[in-house]
């Protein structure tokens, strides 16, 4: 009998969740966890209700308020998001009706869905997880098979505990070498996307592997997997190791006692076999990666902080050349301008990409004893209420506030108008978020994606700044 080919990490989770194969090659996949938020979850819940169906297993369903709630201290349901109060109240009422766990305003576990799902032990290795939010792939960092879906697909998962998928192609990206001190997962992800384009991982389940990944802490891995969707991947995933087991132990919703022992035994099998085959393999040497910043309107428009804005003629395709020209016009930039030194009006630290405790510590380390430049508005929005509380215990809030940052309640906030807030047309924003799309942070707002270290250093200098000039 011929030897069975080896399996990837992704294959193993996929196989263990296959309920049934469709005649057209699709798979009915069991969904372990559903996470909802008030923007798109409200639609899934209300559609479920009007169809006369109910949530099949409410114990596996969680919901938070992050997309619409505002992030000002003393907030209530009366957000400035147009129509926002309805989204909040419908979500609350239907969550109660369906018997699902809701992390409401004022709950110590409230926060951005993907931050909460990890820090509360809701997303687990070897579990499938969906959320009507494209950055659900963040949980791949834990070793979960996690992917974003629309509201209708979410409704399907609520009603049936399953979703039908076609099995994606698989890609492995080996990150080799060693990152320079202070160069982060954000820089790594932007470097990857700029090198292979925003469609480089189109439709693929991407496994991130290699020595650089092993070195990353669990929160940094979440930043990397979070950006898998900006690479057009179906999801990103990292094999769970001892760091993950340590991270999850005693998390509120993680298994306990005998269940914990069974879980860790199962998790130890979640590795790609040595003889497994991928559809695509990429290797990236990381030793020379510098802090990376976007200049344009796609995450692929990223360059080293030491580089200049590229020329449209550098594009291979006419369609890409058009896109660069449009981006240059929107961003009010010309080819050849250095990114380092470009004046900014706003600095923003927040979002499911970079607002965890480790991100805030990195930024605070740069801000300590310094002030933001005159004329700059700077905002920090912790990724969850728990992150905020921990940061305050460490005194990080004082460092941010003394430097001149606004210190907010948790939510998605100015990543995209959450809470009804946007930046002004023409504002140039250095931001720790995930999307620099036209108009994402406000009509005419110009967003430059970067790591929290780069955002903090730029806030201090009033221009896009290589943070390495501010640290010893």
């Amino acid at each position, binding site marked *: 009998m011929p030897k069975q080919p080896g399996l990837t990490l992704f294959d193993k989770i996929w196989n263990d969740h296959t309920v049934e194969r469709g005649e057209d090659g699709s798979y009915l996949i069991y969904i372990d966890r559903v996470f909802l938020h008030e923007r798109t979850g409200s639609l899934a819940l209300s559609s479920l209700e009007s169809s006369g169906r109910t949530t099949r297993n409410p114990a596996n369903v969680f919901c938070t308020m992050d997309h619409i709630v505002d992030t000002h201290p003393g907030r209530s349901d009366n957000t400035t998001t147009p129509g926002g109060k309805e989204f909040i109240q419908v979500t609350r009422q239907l969550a109660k009706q369906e018997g699902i766990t809701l992390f409401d305003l004022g709950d110590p576990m409230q926060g951005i869905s993907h931050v909460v799902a990890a820090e509360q032990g809701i997303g687990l290795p070897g579990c499938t997880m969906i959320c009507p939010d494209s950055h659900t792939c963040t949980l791949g960092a834990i070793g979960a098979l996690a992917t974003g879906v629309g509201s*209708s697909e979410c409704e399907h998962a609520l009603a049936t505990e399953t979703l039908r998928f076609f099995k994606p192609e698989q890609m492995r990206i080996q990150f080799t070498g060693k990152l320079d001190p202070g160069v982060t997962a954000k820089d790594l992800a932007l470097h990857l996307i700029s090198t292979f384009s925003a469609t480089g991982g189109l439709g693929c389940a991407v496994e991130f592997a290699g020595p650089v990944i092993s070195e990353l802490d669990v929160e940094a891995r979440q930043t990397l997997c979070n950006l898998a969707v900006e690479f*057009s991947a179906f999801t990103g995933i990292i094999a769970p190791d001892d760091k993950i087991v340590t991270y999850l132990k005693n998390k509120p919703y993680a298994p306990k006692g005998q269940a914990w022992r069974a879980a860790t035994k199962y998790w130890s099998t979640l590795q790609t076999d040595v003889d497994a085959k991928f559809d695509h393999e990429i290797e990236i040497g990381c030793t020379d990666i510098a802090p990376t910043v976007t200049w344009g309107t796609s995450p692929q428009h990223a360059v080293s902080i030491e580089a200049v804005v590229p020329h449209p003629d550098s594009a291979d395709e006419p369609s890409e050349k058009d896109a660069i020209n449009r981006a240059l016009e929107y961003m009010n930039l010309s080819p050849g301008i250095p990114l380092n030194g470009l004046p900014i009006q706003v600095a923003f630290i927040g979002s499911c990409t970079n607002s965890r405790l480790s991100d805030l510590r990195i930024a605070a380390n740069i801000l300590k004893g310094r002030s933001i430049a005159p004329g700059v508005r700077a905002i920090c929005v912790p990724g969850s209420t728990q992150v905020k509380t921990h940061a305050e215990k460490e005194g990080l809030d004082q460092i941010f506030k003394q430097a001149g940052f606004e210190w907010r309640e948790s939510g998605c906030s100015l990543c995209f108008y959450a809470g009804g807030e946007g930046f002004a047309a023409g504002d140039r924003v250095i931001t720790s978020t995930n999307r620099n799309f036209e108009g994402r942070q406000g009509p005419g707002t110009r967003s430059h994606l970067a790591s929290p270290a780069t955002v903090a250093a730029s806030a201090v200098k009033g221009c896009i700044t290589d943070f390495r000039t501010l640290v010893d």
Partner: protein
Amino acid sequence: MQKFVTHRGIAAPLLRVNIDTDAIIPSREMKRVSREGLGDSLFAGWRYRQGTVKPGDLDPEFVLNQPAYANASILLTGQNMGCGSSREFAVWALKDFGIRAIISPSFGAIFYTNCIRNGLLPIILDEKQISEITAEVTLNPQSNALNIDLQHNLITTANQHQYSFKIASSYQQMLLHGLDPIDLTLQLQTNIDEFIKADQVKRPWAHSIRLIND
């Protein structure tokens, strides 16, 4: 779900790459817990001169505002159409505006499924084919309408050029007959129950979720 069998309509070229769902409908324009009435908000940042929905402020330059493309129901786009946010509001806005099909070299994965789930047909053709169709359509958009036949997976132009496209048979059947995927899956209830029973033995820890603060 609205069926899609055949459709004849005016096609508008919006040949930008990476058209994201924030561009299709900005977050600030999603104002109700409803799938209805989002058409005015479609492409708000591009369709209106100030970048936000305001009657009378339509930008005459934007393709969908041009008289030649009045009543367009088919979009021709660049690659990675509908990338970004999972918001199904993007598809609801397109549908409410009157778009029934989108032809692109590639789609964002979540957006593609959202289209299928709402009876909006996403069609994948290569860039060369899309250029050919665009060249023909733009000569006279109102008379050079496209015919789309989902029973035969075929696009026919006014000049009788034909382009076949691929779509998964389950999606094709869903669209042709307006099937509800939840109903289809609920027919497999027994399989799901059996799966869970076996899985509770294999992965007991995944099924015993509860909050324990000890």
